[in-house]
Each structure stands twice: as structure tokens, then as C-alpha cells.
């Protein structure tokens, strides 16, 4: 939840304090960060073709 920015400020601070006190938690957090980065960097953003956009605009204008 921390990595998803889903913790309140107070909970995030408490979480970070716990991380500092426990190196093994820190290792898990680093691994999870790497995993998220792996997903983000390896799922390519697809491109909509100009023809598709033109087709949509044409349909809208004739509606």
C-alpha cells in the first residue's frame, strides 16, 4: 500500500519508521519496487492508429 500511495501521511511515516528499524522489511520493499519497475518498464504503451481516430471522428460528426 505504501508503494501504491494508498497510505495516509501518518501511516506512511509510521511505515517508514518500521522500515528503518527492520532491515529485512527494507529488503522486501526494495524487491517490490523492482518488481513494479519491471512491470512498468516492460509493458509497452500501444499506439492508436490515425485511421482509427479519423474513423471515430467521422462517426461522431455524422451522428
Amino acid at each position, binding site marked *: 500500500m505504501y508503494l501504491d500511495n494508498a497510505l495516509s501521511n501518518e501511516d506512511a511515516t509510521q511505515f517508514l519508521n518500521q522500515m528503518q528499524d527492520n532491515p529485512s522489511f527494507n529488503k*522486501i520493499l526494495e*524487491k517490490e519496487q523492482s*518488481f513494479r519497475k519491471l*512491470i512498468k518498464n516492460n509493458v*509497452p504503451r500501444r*499506439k*492508436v492508429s490515425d485511421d*482509427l481516430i479519423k474513423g471515430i471522428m467521422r462517426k*461522431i460528426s455524422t*451522428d
Partner: protein
Amino acid sequence: MSDSKELSKVEKDEIFEKEFLPHADALITFGYHLTLFDSSANDLVQETYLKAYRFIDKYDVGTNAKAWLFKIMKNAFINDYRKKSKQPTKIDYDEVVNFLDEGKDDTLSSYQDLREEMFENLMGDEVTNAINSLPVDSRTVILLCDIEGFSYEEIAKIIDVPVGTVRSRLHRSRNMLKKKLQVYAEELGYKDKRKST
């Protein structure tokens, strides 16, 4: 929601081009991972934009166009595409699992570990294939959270489930993905030394 004030054609076109069209690439990426086919993804994008335009009076200008469009696409996928392709609707077990999981610590005890060294062996194709092999509800939350950066609350609205369900579904889906990536990495020659000890 807006008070459904009547917009002129010029106003509608302006909202459409300025607020909706910039999300076309994000939508087709989501559409592709929902349908797993380029042609179906194109159909879904078209349907999403046509519906968005038809109901543009319901959209609050300047708010979260991306989340609104994603919700339309997800509904279009469930209501139209999945029915047309005659895929059976799967039972959503999340509520049952949530009930069973209640009170459990799902942060560490069920954490699926994935060695960082494995990442070096994995390329985009393997990651995409692993995501696409997950059940549609699982790949949906991963895409919405990890690729598109939606918050739990936004995802809950897009897929019509409680925030708690988003949280638990993400946790389970990421674990499933890690297991699949581990299999891919092992097929590519990576050996997890912990297994031999």
C-alpha cells in the same frame, strides 16, 4: 455528476478533443490487455469513444476524464464484447475470499518473493505474456494500478468493487504474476538457488 446541461456541438467537440482524445493510447493498451486481440482492442476503443461522446453531458468538464473513459471501456467490455464473444461470465470469488481472509496479515505472510536477479533475464514479451495469461480481473487491476497509476479509489470506481476488494485482488494478482514470471525466468535458465537448499 454534472447537472446534465445541454452542451453545444462545438463545446462537445472541444471537450472530446482536449480531454478525451489524449487518452487514446492508454485506452488501446487497456483494451488490448482486456481482449488480447488488436482488432478487438480497436473496436473497444471506438465503442468507448462513441459512448463517451454520446454521454458527454454526464461528464464534469475538467475532472478525471481518464478514469471516466476507462470505466466506459470496462463496462463496454463486460456488457458487449464478452457477450458477443460468448465467453461465460466467471464468478467473482473476491467477496468470498475477502471474507475468509479477514483478519489475516496479508502483507508479509502471503508475500510472494521474487529474486531481483530474475528480473535481468526477463524481457518485455515475457512480462506481457505473463500478464496476459492472468485471469481478466487480475490483469485489469495490475494494468490500472501499475501501468496507468490509478489510485485504489479510482480503480474501485472503474471496476465497481469496494476499495478493500481492489487491495486484496491486487495483492493476489501480483503474487500470481510473480509466480508466472518465476516460471518464465527458470525456463530462460535462471536457477533460484534457495530451492536446492
